[in-house]
């Protein structure tokens, strides 16, 4: 048996933990730069605030109902996410918990006797709420895909299910599948949902009646076959190890205000390179290819391109590296190539790819570097200082000191759990 534990409106719940005045009120959280709505509480959904819409469109509704609005506070969410996962690891054993995303994880319940499935699911729900203040929903079923189906129904019918739904018999599974549309099945994208509807496959139940060959031929090969197996109650995606190494590392941000000068863009790009290189070193990798792109602000708003087309370039280094300083220089070169005087830019980003393990970098005969070790040590030292002192206290000069292009965060809540100066006040 597999359980999935999924936090209810996770970002909104985090904002609420220290604010009892919001416990039954509508809350929304905005994306970086306060551009879009990325999380809504049930109360906000009920008054009709849409998902992923631009903030300005929902603003009249938000003001009319006095919806509490927050800029995204990733320091808080990251810490609360760790607390939720750690609570589950304590409760269920580290080896049985697979963190799937910031707000959901799979639990291997194979060692739990079947009479205790319901009880254990309730215990997870109650313990996570008690320890962390975050409410979760739990779906329990024979496979991951079915547990997702259960979880979704638990969330949709909170009053009846009390956020826990157990599918432990063929009849219960069948009923749940009938109540689930194909587009709501984990792994079925919009394109496939459309295709399935053409075959008159409307619910997850309809889909589960197809045989495996049909799945392989019509739903993208082996992936489709696995999906069908899972729907039929046979596990086919084993508990995966936690995400190991990323193949591509990207850092992109909108600018707080549109930017016209090359200096600001270079500072931003150098800062993103610094962040990406830091991530690269944390997973003990090195990268060979550096890509940089910028997105100009279009004067005539073209609805076909929500973000406008991006302009980019890339460089392949002779040797894979994890050193920030070795990446900043080529990245600056790319900015020089792609920047056009007179245009206004609203976004930039960097991407590191061709990633290899840091300790097995293929040597290049003509570039033997024994300085490399020293520099790598310097980077480790810099990373340690930055992690312990916070706020990128050590920076490369290329990333600038004024940072006029930094993101806007107009509704930022305190970082209650990670900053000594921002802890919650009580009376």
């Amino acid at each position, binding site marked *: 048996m597999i359980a999935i534990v999924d936090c209810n409106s996770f970002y909104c719940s985090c904002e609420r933990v220290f604010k*009892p*005045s919001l416990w039954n009120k509508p809350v929304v959280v905005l994306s970086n730069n306060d551009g879009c709505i990325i999380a809504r509480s049930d109360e906000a959904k009920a008054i009709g605030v849409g998902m992923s819409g631009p903030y300005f469109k929902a603003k009249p509704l938000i003001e009319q109902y006095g919806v509490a609005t927050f800029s995204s506070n990733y320091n808080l969410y990251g810490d609360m996410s760790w607390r939720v*996962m750690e609570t589950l690891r304590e409760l269920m054993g580290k080896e049985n918990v697979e963190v799937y995303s910031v707000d959901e994880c799979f639990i291997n319940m194979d060692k739990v006797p079947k009479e205790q499935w319901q009880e254990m699911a309730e215990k997870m729900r109650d313990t996570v709420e008690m320890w962390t203040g975050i409410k979760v929903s739990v779906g329990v079923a024979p496979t991951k895909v079915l547990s997702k189906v259960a979880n979704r129904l638990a969330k949709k019918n909170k009053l009846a299910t009390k956020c826990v739904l157990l599918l432990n018999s063929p009849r219960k599974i069948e009923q749940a599948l009938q109540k689930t549309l194909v587009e709501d099945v984990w792994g079925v994208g919009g394109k496939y949902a459309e295709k399935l509807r053409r075959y008159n496959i409307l619910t997850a139940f309809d889909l589960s009646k197809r045989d495996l060959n049909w799945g392989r031929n019509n739903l993208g090969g082996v992936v489709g076959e696995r999906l069908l197996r899972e729907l039929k109650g046979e596990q086919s995606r084993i508990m995966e190890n936690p995400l190991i190494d990323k193949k591509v590392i990207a850092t992109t941000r909108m600018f707080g205000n549109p930017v016209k000068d090359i200096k600001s863009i270079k500072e931003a790009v150098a800062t993103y390179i610094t962040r990406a290189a830091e991530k690269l070193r944390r997973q003990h990798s090195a990268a060979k290819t550096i890509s940089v792109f910028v997105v100009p602000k279009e004067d005539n708003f073209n609805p076909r391109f929500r973000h406008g087309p991006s302009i980019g370039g890339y460089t392949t280094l002779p040797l894979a590296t994890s050193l920030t300083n070795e990446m900043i220089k080529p990245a600056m070169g790319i900015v020089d190539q792609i920047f056009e005087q007179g245009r206004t830019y609203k976004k930039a980003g960097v991407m590191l790819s061709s990633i290899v393990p840091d300790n097995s970098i293929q040597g290049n005969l003509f570039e033997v570097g024994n300085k490399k070790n020293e520099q790598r040590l310097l980077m480790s030292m810099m990373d340690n200082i930055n992690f312990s002192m916070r706020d990128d206290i050590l920076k490369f000069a290329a990333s600038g000191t004024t940072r006029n292009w930094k993101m806007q965060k107009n509704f930022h809540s305190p970082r209650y759990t990670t900053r000594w*100066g921002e802890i*919650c006040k*009580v009376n």
Partner: protein
Amino acid sequence: MYGSTYNGTKSFSQNDIQTANATGFGAATDDYSERGIDLNEQLIMNKPATFFFKMNSDAMTEAGIFPGDVLIVDRSLKASSDKIIVAAVNDDLVVRYFKQNQQLFWLEAANKRYGNMVLEEFTVYRPWGVVTCVIHIIEPALKAFSAPKKSGK
């Protein structure tokens, strides 16, 4: 992102133990080196459930909690009579003694100027966590040291 926020006290490795690194004779004490005292280890029983708060009023002075003190709060402990707890009462978070006498519940300040908050049917009340420890800084230099640093958000 996950886990990086904490350097949990339980994930202590032998490399964290100080050695003299003497260049002459190996320091005699190196064989006896052990982990130094770590307040996190002593004062935090359950890390994922532990939060810090700052006392903002004089409601609990007679219990030894003064304005500006830092409270360590553990959500995994159950509120029971005579414990000092953080509770949400009608939209506010307060620190009080939790009192229970048969069917009667109330929150009591440790300062005569404050009245009891009786938890009736219509009071919106929820326990938030149990206060396990008070940090009261007395040395001005330490106060300045632990004051919030200016931070670039």
